[in-house]
């Protein structure tokens, strides 16, 4: 046990945030800085006949106006897609549309002005002659004959078809099942809405031909790579990308966005720094959205509730362009999770990725895994009711058992560890499940609609083994870097390729290094988010930072310890194998002679003097490591929620929520609980309130916070968090990742609870969000149409 790991420590980054000293891109002020604003299409689909920028250019304070043609003429390339399964149709994605716009918010021109106010004034002076075209919005409708075509390059709007499993075997097994639950469901579109709107700024040094880009990104190195190798062609060694404090991401800040191309391009063009900051309305139109699946699914089982086969047919809405990782989400991160916690022997799944006239869809917290859990856990919920079985009991009957790990699922993944009964035991106890059921029975007897919802979810996180993800279609490996630099005075700088945008890495990674080296965390500074300061890194998403980024730092710390031990042995004239590195004090001593010792700081200084090192040793205490994990990690959960539905209005009140998760070993319980609770809130948001809604013509109806229902404080009871721990064998820390489990489980748990409340009325399924109106209509229908 070290001094730090496993302890709830206050975050070292907080003093700047609570005092208004956050370093967000929007706060950047550079001498000579100009401001960009982007003219966006009000049409979901239209031909651009002409763009007249003369009046905007003539406005006092406007420096320049550029269109998509200007960018293309100067050699700017389309934004690439980074996950390309075989036979995918890849339509071009220009940073600014050239001859056709394909979703509301598609950019057509950029104004660069002396102030943001003037830039917005100029937008109103740009005349675009549009010729509206028919639009398609729905993922499944897009693939039907006669649907409007979004791209000439994508016939029938189907960009890719991705399947896994033996469909004939699954169909045969389903035909032989005692009971098959069949369900159509919609996993509605969400808008991520990190509270910091996206922002980008750039400065061009013409003498040195050096570009610096600041962007609110979860992965600055990836953005540098894409800007260099694909969109702008600026040599990678002449391009610095900085993602300073980033105000939340939830996946939406992974991708290479148009503004990250436009802003540096314009900065070079005009020879002055440029800054662009999204308004919230712009975020709604242009941040990659999440989810948006239309699914038909079947789960077959024996009469005693043993799962036999699962069949999934899914349409996934890609939106108007293929965002960076978009095709990965409803395929490799979705169908591979369909085994859940269970031993279903055969599983088949297919996803059609379709293009529509909507904002592109990509990873949003959980990314494919919430959608998978939603399908599976809804099916099981209905099955348990059909077979008159307690939903927890049915799940337990099908669990993969602790002695069956590593467990090969029928959908490619090998689960590394877990004890699902233990997670459920803890949840059942915390929730006092039987009392909850008794209260429900009493409430029902009194005429109230009270429901208890249960789910057991799994995710593959800690992405991930590079060979596996690249073989699935990813265009980058997913290892991570971690460097430790020990200064002459024994102070330590930690450099990580992971990126913190709320996770608290400056604290949790310091805890890890503090314990690995036995030094106070006040002597450690964690640096992230700057390509010029860090070794190459991949960034933060898929709950990977502790598992992969932490793993790399453990490796570097090991190397530092080894070197310190060798130096100490040399200076104390002892054999290396006789030395003991005490990780609580950071001292190295000769075994059995604690006073024959060297302190961490002494060795650090000795290295700097470099006059008494082992022969041939380099005089530096600095190590960099790259960790590529052998497998994903598999966090899992048991969540239980209790809700009440108002019979008169259909309004749902969340009464209680218990979240028990096995996220492996825990570095900082305070931060892990924060991740879980925050994740649950986002999951509940999808279940009850949130919807990125378009009308049939392609207009975005939830264009601002006036119409997109963000969860607020008064929507929740106290969310209660518990845990069990089975360490992951897939990384040195035994961690699994805590960022997404809450969201993955939260959505389906609450939907299951509401459906449980409505079960006495015979309601089988309602699509999210579970608005009061939908519920009231279901109640009325159950009562034969009367209220």
């Amino acid at each position, binding site marked *: 046990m070290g001094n730090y790991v496993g302890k709830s420590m206050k975050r070292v980054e907080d003093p700047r945030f609570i005092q208004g000293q956050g370093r967000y891109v929007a706060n950047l002020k550079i001498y000579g800085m100009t401001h960009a604003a982007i003219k966006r299409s009000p049409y979901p689909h239209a031909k651009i006949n002409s763009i007249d920028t003369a009046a905007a250019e003539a406005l006092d304070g406007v420096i320049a106006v550029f269109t998509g043609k200007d960018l293309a003429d100067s050699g700017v390339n389309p934004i690439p897609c980074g996950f390309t399964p075989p036979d995918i149709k890849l339509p071009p994605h220009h940073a600014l549309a050239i001859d056709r716009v394909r979703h509301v918010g598609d950019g057509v021109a950029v104004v660069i002005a002396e102030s*943001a*106010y003037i*830039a*917005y*004034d100029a937008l*109103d002076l740009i005349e675009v002659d549009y010729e509206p075209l028919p639009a398609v919005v729905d993922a499944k409708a897009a693939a039907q004959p006669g649907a409007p075509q979004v791209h000439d390059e994508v016939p029938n709007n189907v960009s890719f078809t991705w399947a896994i499993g033996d469909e004939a075997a699954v169909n045969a097994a389903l035909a032989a099942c005692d009971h098959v639950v069949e369900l159509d469901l919609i996993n509605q579109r969400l808008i991520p809405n990190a509270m910091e709107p996206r922002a980008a700024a750039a400065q061009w040094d013409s003498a040195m031909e050096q570009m610096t880009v600041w962007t609110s990104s979860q992965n600055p190195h990836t953005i540098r790579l894409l800007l260099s190798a694909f969109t702008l062609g600026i040599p990678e060694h002449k391009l610095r990308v900085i993602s300073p404090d980033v105000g939340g991401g939830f996946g939406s800040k992974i991708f290479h966005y148009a503004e990250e191309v436009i802003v540096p391009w314009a900065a070079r063009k005009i020879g002055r720094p440029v800054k662009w900051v999204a*308004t*919230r*309305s712009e975020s709604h139109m242009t941040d990659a959205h999440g989810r948006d699946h239309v699914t038909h699914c079947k789960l077959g089982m024996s009469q005693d509730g043993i799962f036999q086969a699962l069949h999934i047919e899914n349409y996934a809405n890609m939106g108007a362009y293929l965002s960076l990782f978009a095709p990965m989400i409803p395929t490799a991160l979705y169908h591979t999770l369909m085994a859940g916690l269970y031993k279903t022997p055969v599983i088949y799944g297919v996803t059609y990725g379709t293009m529509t006239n909507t904002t592109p869809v990509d990873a949003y917290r959980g990314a494919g895994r919430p959608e998978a859990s939603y399908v599976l856990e809804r099916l099981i919920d209905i099955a348990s009711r059909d077979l008159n079985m307690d939903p927890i009991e049915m799940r337990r009957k099908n669990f993969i058992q602790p002695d069956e790990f590593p467990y090969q699922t029928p959908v490619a993944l090998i689960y590394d560890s877990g004890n699902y009964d233990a997670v459920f035991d803890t949840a059942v106890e915390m929730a006092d499940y039987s009392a909850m059921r008794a209260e429900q029975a009493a409430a029902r007897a009194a005429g109230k609609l009270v429901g208890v919802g249960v789910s057991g979810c799994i995710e593959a996180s800690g992405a991930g083994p590079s060979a596996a993800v690249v073989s699935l279609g990813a265009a980058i490996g997913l290892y991570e870097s971690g460097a430790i630099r020990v200064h002459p005075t024994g102070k330590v700088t930690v450099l990580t390729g992971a990126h913190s945008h709320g996770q608290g890495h400056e604290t949790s990674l310091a805890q890890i290094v503090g314990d690995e080296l036995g030094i106070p965390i006040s002597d450690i500074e964690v640096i992230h988010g700057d390509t010029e300061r860090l070794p190459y890194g991949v960034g933060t998403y898929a709950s990977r930072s502790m598992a992969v980024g932490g793993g790399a730092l453990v490796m570097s710390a090991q190397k530092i310890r080894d070197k310190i031990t060798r130096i100490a042995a040399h200076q104390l004239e002892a054999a290396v194998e006789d030395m003991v590195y005490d990780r609580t004090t950071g001292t190295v001593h000769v075994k059995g002679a604690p006073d024959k010792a060297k302190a961490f700081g002494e060795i650090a200084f000795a290295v700097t003097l470099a006059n008494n090192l082992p022969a041939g040793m380099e005089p530096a205490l600095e190590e960099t490591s790259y960790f590529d994990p052998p497998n994903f990690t598999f966090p899992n959960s048991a969540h239980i929620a209790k809700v009440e539905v108002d019979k*008169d*209005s259909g*309004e749902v009140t969340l009464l209680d929520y218990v979240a028990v998760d096995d996220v492996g070993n825990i570095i900082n319980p305070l931060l892990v609980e924060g991740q879980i609770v925050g994740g649950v809130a986002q999951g509940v948001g999808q279940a*009850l*309130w949130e*919807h990125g*809604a378009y009308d049939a013509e392609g207009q975005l*109806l*939830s264009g*601002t*916070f*006036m*119409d*997109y*229902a*963000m969860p607020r404080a008064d929507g929740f009871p106290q969310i209660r968090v518990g845990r069990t721990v089975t360490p992951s064998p897939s990384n040195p820390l035994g961690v699994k990742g805590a960022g997404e489990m809450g969201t993955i489980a939260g959505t389906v748990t609450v939907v299951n609870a509401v459906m449980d409340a409505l079960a006495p009325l015979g309601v089988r399924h309602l699509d999210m969000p579970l*608005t*009061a*109106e939908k519920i*009231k*209509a279901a109640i009325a229908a159950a009562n034969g149409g009367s*209220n």
Partner: protein
Amino acid sequence: MYPPKFDYLRADSAANALELLAANPDAKVMAGGHSLIPAMNLRLADPGTIIDIGRVADFKFLSANDGYVGIGSGTTHAEVAASSDVPSALSEAAGLIGDPQVRNRGTVGGNIAHADPASDLPTVLVALDATISTVSGSGTRMIKAGDFFVDLFETALNDGELVAEISMNQDGANTGSAYAKLSNPASRYAMVGAAARVTVEGGVFTAVSVAVGGLTPKAQAAPSVGAALVGQAATADNIAAAAAAVQNDLGDDVMGDIHASADYRRQMATVFVKRALTKATERAG
């Protein structure tokens, strides 16, 4: 997030405001600015000239006298929400407008002059049969709330006329009032709002006034509910039966959107009238 340009004129008194308005007949009058500024931030409003009456002391008062309460148009929602002099329905509704920060700046006069159909106050003022006093170059006018709200974002205010005061009877003896609201889950504006004031004497309703809003283009009185209830015993069954009579008063213009259809809102008018009546009846006791 970047309002368009406008000329800004600041009034320092009611008389000065009227002068400025007479000289700039197309100007937009702004008190707290909490309807206007968000609209300008989205460039949905481009007023050209703004007359700021936010500092006019003449419009800032709240006083009760002899069973009657007068509220200056410049009074903020927070001040109304905190007042024990105003009818319960009004303080309750004021406390549900926006959020604490919005209530600190938004004013009663600005709110009702904007006449947003999803606003809370118009519904309450109609139920309370409030009087809206105006000032203009040609003197003062008293307009009943039921006549003040004309249509979607349209009031009986003439050009050059300002809201000066809103006044109404306090909740008297054996009288209670309440407001109940089905909120838009995103904006928290009313999808359905229902306000009621009842007088209960000897266990029997002797006076009932109800109005609904949020679902109709303007706040709508619901006389059918009162008619069904007056003379009846103050019981839950009678309230429930009478609440359904609101359907007679909704008219054909019930509105819907992505959050709630017109049909659903129509149904909810009955539910929320019942809730408002129930609470008001408890308060009358």
